[in-house]
């Protein structure tokens, strides 16, 4: 299982400044569990995924702890990390057309994922790749093995990417918006395929999405991210039934009913804070309907509530010192 | 600093100079110096480039002959200066002719498309069937050797390249919104072309012309080296290199300096072209 402890990522940008893209995230993904990581675009979801994969942009600084099956990935050498990637943790990203090498046969790209980690012959890798392609639902995988990616539809390409990602039975899969680039009709198929395959093998999934509908369909737990921080997490049932954080509530309120999801971001008034210079108190304060004076002076502490956790002064263990504004 | 009033043209040139990226400024500066040197050749050259001096046959470089003297005792420095003059004249003539022909052809092909494009582009494509130097040599085979033929041959090589660039740039501009605007205002095609397409599509053509100008120096020198370009007694860099081969080991200066001169011009045009590309052709339509 994956355990992320107080992870922070800073990315250098022009003018000697840093984007504090991930700021003290603590999160766990158990085996066979699907955890939805939700938040608006730019809130640091992909960067968190990159921190776990050891694939941050050049010059980025990482602190905190990433434990995979109890092993600290922080101290790994480049070659050790390479052996982990695609083997113990795998990635499926947003755009399948951009994920595959356009000049290589799709089957070869699956076989490569196997041979990167296993010392087996070409023939054997090929046979195993054909089986994987069959398992993800590519029709006639033996014949399509040699086809280049552009002869497949988006959904079929994403199936190939999933086949390659799951080739070595990883403990954890990071699925970074795996259905965003796909047709609505295909999205559900891919989600359920992911769910079926990972539940069967006990692979834990960190399902990154900005779509609460995706969370409702396949996730066990949810972590809501805002401006680099996880502001609330808990079981999907609890959080959906009783969101504690005003941002979660706003997300849920602005979401159309789950059965006609729009692919777009929910609309919440106001602007995301500048992550090169985040506000001192609660990062959501500028947009929060329930902001009060404590919010702008100090960042809220994380409190345990039931099975979940929330970071909001409204849910401080101590009673609020000042009056709520609304 | 004293505030001197510069004529308006002068300030524009200075401003254009500083508008260039730094490396391109070096290229521009070298070219300006070379052009001045060649324009003032009679003042700068210490000797008559063709004056034979039996007392200085293969003389090594010294103060009187900074680049030494050749097998006939002619001053290599003076000959290089005059040869530069010939080379630059051929280069400017060839690139100017090619650009002036490519401008209307490429613009019409890109702007109108359809059969106009076919009628213009297909025959130009045929010129690309032969490798560049072969095309030049073919023309020379027909007409006979000489500086003017060499310039025309280079122009012929460059015409299809420049026309293609201009065609691509016009194609892009022709689909930009303001051209539609001009049409909607009832302007004639010619007015739209003159006011919008040509000014907006000119950048890549200039970039390509600058880069090609550098290689024109090389082509001209190659042709003269083969005896197919500039004919003696006119001094030319290629001819000097061809003549100096026989005395290479005794008097390497006869070979070294004209060759360096070519390398410097090519480098200068390349720097300028690359810099102009950054400023004028961000999409990289020129090759």
């Amino acid at each position, binding site marked *: 299982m994956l355990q992320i402890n107080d992870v922070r990522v800073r990315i250098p940008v022009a003018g000697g400044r840093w984007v504090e893209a991930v700021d003290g995230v603590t999160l766990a993904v158990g085996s066979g569990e699907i955890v939805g990581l939700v938040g608006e675009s730019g809130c640091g979801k992909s960067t968190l995924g990159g921190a776990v994969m050891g*694939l941050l942009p050049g010059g980025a600084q990482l602190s905190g702890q990433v434990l995979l099956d109890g092993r600290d990935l922080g101290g790994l050498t480049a070659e050790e990390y390479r052996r982990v990637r695609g083997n113990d943790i795998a990635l499926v990203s947003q*755009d399948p057309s951009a994920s595959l090498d*356009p*000049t290589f046969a799709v089957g070869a790209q699956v076989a490569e994922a196997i041979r990167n980690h296993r010392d087996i012959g070409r023939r054997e890798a090929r046979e195993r790749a054909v089986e994987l392609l069959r398992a993800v639902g590519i029709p006639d995988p033996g014949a399509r093995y040699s086809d280049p990616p552009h002869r497949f539809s988006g959904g079929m390409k994403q199936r190939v990417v999933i086949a390659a990602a799951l080739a070595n039975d990883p403990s954890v899969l990071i699925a970074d918006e795996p259905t965003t680039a796909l047709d609505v009709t295909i999205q559900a198929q891919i989600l359920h395929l992911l769910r079926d395959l990972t539940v069967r093998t006990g692979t834990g999934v960190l399902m990154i999405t900005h779509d609460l509908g995706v969370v409702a369909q396949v996730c066990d737990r949810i972590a809501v991210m805002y401006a680099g921080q996880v502001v609330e997490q808990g079981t999907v049932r609890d959080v959906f039934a009783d969101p504690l954080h005003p941002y979660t509530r706003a997300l849920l309120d602005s979401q159309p009913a789950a059965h006609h999801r729009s692919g777009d971001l929910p609309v919440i008034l106001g602007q995301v804070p500048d992550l090169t210079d985040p506000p001192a108190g609660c990062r959501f304060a500028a947009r929060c309907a329930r902001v009060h004076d404590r919010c702008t002076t100090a960042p809220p502490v994380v409190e345990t509530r039931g099975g979940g956790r929330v970071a909001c002064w409204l849910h401080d263990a101590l009673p609020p010192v000042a009056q709520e504004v609304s | 600093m004293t505030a001197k009033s510069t004529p308006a043209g002068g300030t524009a040139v200075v401003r254009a100079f500083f508008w260039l990226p730094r490396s391109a400024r070096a290229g521009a500066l070298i070219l300006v110096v070379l052009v001045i040197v060649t324009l003032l050749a009679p003042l700068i050259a210490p000797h008559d480039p063709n004056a034979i001096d039996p007392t200085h046959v293969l003389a090594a470089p010294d103060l009187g002959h900074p680049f030494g003297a050749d097998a006939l005792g002619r001053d290599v420095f003076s000959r290089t200066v005059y040869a530069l003059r010939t080379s630059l004249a051929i280069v400017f003539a060839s690139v100017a002719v090619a650009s002036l022909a490519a401008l209307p052809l490429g613009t019409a092909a890109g702007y109108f498309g359809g059969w106009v494009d076919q009628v213009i582009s297909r025959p130009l494509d045929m010129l690309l069937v032969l490798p560049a130097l072969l095309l030049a040599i073919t023309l020379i085979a027909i007409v006979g050797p000489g500086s003017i033929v060499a310039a025309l041959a280079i122009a012929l090589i460059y015409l299809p390249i420049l026309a293609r660039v201009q065609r691509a740039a016009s194609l892009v501009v022709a689909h930009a919104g303001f051209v539609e605007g001009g049409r909607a205002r009832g302007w004639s095609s010619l007015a739209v072309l003159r006011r919008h397409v040509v000014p907006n599509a000119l950048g890549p053509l200039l970039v390509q012309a600058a880069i090609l100008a550098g290689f024109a120096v090389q082509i001209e020198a190659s042709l003269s080296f083969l005896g197919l370009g500039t004919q003696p007694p006119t001094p030319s860099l290629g001819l000097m290199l061809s003549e100096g081969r026989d005395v*290479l080991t005794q008097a390497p200066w006869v070979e070294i300096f004209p060759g360096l001169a070519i390398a410097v011009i090519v480098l200068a045009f390349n720097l300028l072209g690359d810099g102009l590309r950054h400023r004028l052709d961000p999409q990289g339509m020129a090759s």
Partner: protein
Amino acid sequence: MNPRLLFVLRRLGLTIPVLFVMSVVIFLIIRLVPGDPVRTMLGFRATPESIAQVRAQLHLDDPLWVQYRDWLAGLLHGDFGQDFVSKAPLSELLAQRVPVTLEITLLSMLLAVAVGVPLGVRAAVGGRWARRLTEGFVVFGISVPDFWLGIMLVLVCAGTMMWLPPSGYVPFTEDPGGNLTYMILPVLTLAVAEAAYIIRTTRGAMLGVIGRPFIVYLRAKGTRERSIVYRHALRNAATPIATVIGIQFGVLLGGAIVVETLFALPGVGRLIVTAINQRNYPVVQAGLLVVATLFILVSLITDLVVGFIDPQVSDRGES
């Protein structure tokens, strides 16, 4: 039909009109000479009788299209006509000359690719020093005229050190070692600029590919960096690289003319230049025809190679 086969057939089909146009242009050379080409060819030997005789010999009095038809028919049977000066059949002359030109150009190309592609890759993915050094080499290779580089090489290697022949030639079949020794300087001369262009193109193409998302995904699969760079990125960068190699082959053929003259190599290039100076039009035509055909064939091969490396190219317009 198999898309690749279709692609090959379509590309072959495109080559035929190009060959046709080229042959017409070269056929017309002698007819385009201002004034009477035969008078020009004969020079001071021109008398009304000799002019009439040569015109008949070259069939210049037939209608143009008949002349072209006969010329083309001859070519297809391997008959390139006669050397106007020596009267020898040109097919024999070309059979001696073409291999020399091919040897220089192909060896130069091979050397330039073998050096240029790895250096271009290093320039793209290597450290600052790799980048600086290759950039310096590129500027040098592009700016320095090839024949001058050849002269300087002679000065340094043959003149001063005396361990390489400054010029000359023996056929490979007679003396392979000697042949290669004679090839060293000409091949180096041509390869430097060629390598510079290949480095520049490789570097640019590799930088473009390295920034693409599938490279990140390859890393996420645990693919080794070496394999990412040389197997995946390089293959994706191959289209512009192969295209430039094809274009540069034309430049090499032009450069061969100069280099053959410089190093006294008996290739087609020198043949053409000598023939132009002698107004030996049949030789000029035959020589140009061979070189242009080589160029067109290399363009064809380049396109086919690109189609095989990148399936997107061969699939284009499939349906």
